[in-house]
């Protein structure tokens, strides 16, 4: 599904990623771990198409296409979803209107008919329970005045509605208490299927108690220095990152 080859990227002239190789297959869950400043969020943002990051060399192939040639919205249409580390507020735009617009854009790009308000509401009712999101948040402005936990759950709710092929969770666990963590993880797990894949970017191991990865990668100073099974995460938890230097 996703092949990253020798990816180098920089922001404002400073090189952050120094040669990343990564392959993600359908049905897999990959965890990318690493200390602060190792380049985890950079990688997540590059996959989503954020312009501030400049890819200096290397390639990304997604479902047989050159991902780097696609605009962010085209990537979204083709099933890439980024759960933001810091979800953005859009005052005056209701959460449910925003999400319907998003879903319909994706559907239009796939030649599907747009959903009207009634059809969409039906879908929303089904999905909202997955993340135990308070229904009153649907008609509030996007993320405005949401608590940290509500924002993160709202991201997973959007993911549930948009049903992406490749979901990238950028530090979704940061700032969550243990209950919220469990709810978010349950949401992610119940959306898992043999046709989609998930990349979980995280600083801590604890999210991986709930979302069990097939592969764990350790990112350090812009390179993947170690990959392994889920036990690698536990090893990192007990030993820290220092032993990898």
């Amino acid at each position, binding site marked *: 599904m996703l092949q990253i080859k020798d990816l180098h990227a920089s922001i404002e002239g400073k090189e952050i990623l120094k040669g990343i190789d990564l392959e993600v297959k359908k049905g897999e869950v990959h965890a990318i771990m690493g200390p602060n400043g190792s380049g985890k969020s950079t990688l997540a943002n590059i996959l989503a*198409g954020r312009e501030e990051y400049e890819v200096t060399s290397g390639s990304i192939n997604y479902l047989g296409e050159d991902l780097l040639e696609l605009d*962010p*919205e085209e990537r979204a249409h083709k099933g890439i979803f980024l759960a933001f580390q810091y979800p953005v507020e859009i*005052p005056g*735009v209701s959460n449910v209107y925003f999400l319907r617009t*998003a879903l319909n854009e994706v559907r239009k790009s796939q030649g599907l008919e747009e959903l009207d308000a009634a059809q969409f509401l039906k879908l929303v009712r089904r999905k909202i329970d997955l993340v135990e999101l308070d229904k009153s948040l649907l008609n509030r402005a996007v993320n405005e005045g949401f608590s940290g936990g509500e924002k993160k759950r709202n991201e997973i709710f959007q993911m549930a509605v*948009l049903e992406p092929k490749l979901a990238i969770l950028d530090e979704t666990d940061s700032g969550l208490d243990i209950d919220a963590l469990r709810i978010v993880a349950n949401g992610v797990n119940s959306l898992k299927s043999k046709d989609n894949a998930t990349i979980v970017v995280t600083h801590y191991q604890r999210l991986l108690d709930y979302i069990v990865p097939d592969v764990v990668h350790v990112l350090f100073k812009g390179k993947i220095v170690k990959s392994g099974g889920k036990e690698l995460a536990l090893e990192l938890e007990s030993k820290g990152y220092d032993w990898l230097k």
Partner: protein
Amino acid sequence: MSTEAEQLESLAQQEYKYGFVTDIEADALPPGLNEDVIRIISQKKKEPAFMLEWRLKAYRRWLKMEEPKWPKVEYPEINFQDIIYYSAPKNTPKYNSLDEVDPQLLETYNKLGIPLEEQKMLAGVAVDAVFDSVSVATTFKEKLSEMGVIFCPISEALQEYPDLVKKYLGSVVPATDNFYAALNSAVFSDGSFVYVPKGVRCPMELSTYFRINAQNTGQFERTLIVADEGSYVSYLEGCTAPQRDENQLHAAVVELVALKGAEIKYSTVQNWYPGDDEGKGGIYNFVTKRGIAHENAKISWTQVETGSAITWKYPSVILKGDNSIGEFYSVAMTNKFQQADTGTKMIHIGKNTRSNIVSKGISAGRSNNSYRGLVKVMKSAENARNFSQCDSLLIGDKCGAHTFPYIEVNNTTGRVEHEATTSKIGEDQIFYCNQRGLDTEQAVSLIVNGYCKEVFRELPMEFAVEAQKLLSISLEGSVG
């Protein structure tokens, strides 16, 4: 700027290139203004004698007045002797069918959802003798007259209801109020007159009718709306379709009179030609709008301003009666080289008077957008309350937003609150929308419409939908 944005901009340009240039058959005076010109205007319109005196008085005062220099707008000096002050327009259709009209223009109309027959009117296409909207308008007129509501051109009102007009004309905006109001009083061409009798709730928004008749109102428009005791009227001015006019200078006056317990809701959507890419040729819109609210009366101004090269406009409410309410909701959007200096004045005179101001400025391109507002609490105004919220949104880094709030409180029981914010559409917000599948123009439009929500919800439903579309179209090409 990307090529796509350039294309969009050139499209927006074309929208104004065709359509509104109508051949005017000559029945016009030469350019220039003097007392004889005013006499001819009054005579041509068969006005009662008092009207001529009123106009002349205004003209004599105008001669001694100076153009205001305090607004934050810049424009070359206007030569008032170059303007034609009277021409009787006889519009001849420019096209025989819509097929001949520039397709880009039609696309804009379609985007705005304007009905086909109205498109013809707007584009200058000959219309059939049996024309749906006209007959609808006639039906409206009959229904209104059944309830005693008068709604007609002010020139007609001067002939048919001279006493009523005489009683209220200039009672809110005196003929000598300011430079442009004085000029308007001297030479006004036409406009609307509305009278709603005691206790009558006007059964419809006075809009569709107006839109059809909007073409001949000219550059010095005069509107007078009187809501008698306990009555209600909602009036919609303007049109979301792009409008071009031969006259560069527009100086309108609108007066509202809300008698005891009456309510007037006045909504405007203004989309005059804003000028070319260098900011040349756009319309100068210098408007005086003011209402007086008597005891327990309420006046609401709601405006969505997207057009004109220069806008100079401060819809105001004089809260004369006890417990009266004044409201002002405004979205002013400027793009390219547009300049807007707009806001409101709330003058609290009566006891327990309340005013509410929500102003949303949006600046894009190289435009300048200023909010200028006055809240004045007079000594007599016990327990006056005001709340003002003035927000500015910047798109890009070559535009400007400015806020000039003036507050004068002369009664210690008054409470005046003012909040102001300035924000930029963030890359973060746009990327967030992009990542969810919206392209950048959609994203900006969504964010801007969200920002304006508090104002849009004050507009009548149909107008609100049009205003949202209009804003999206006006924003096209503003993000590279």
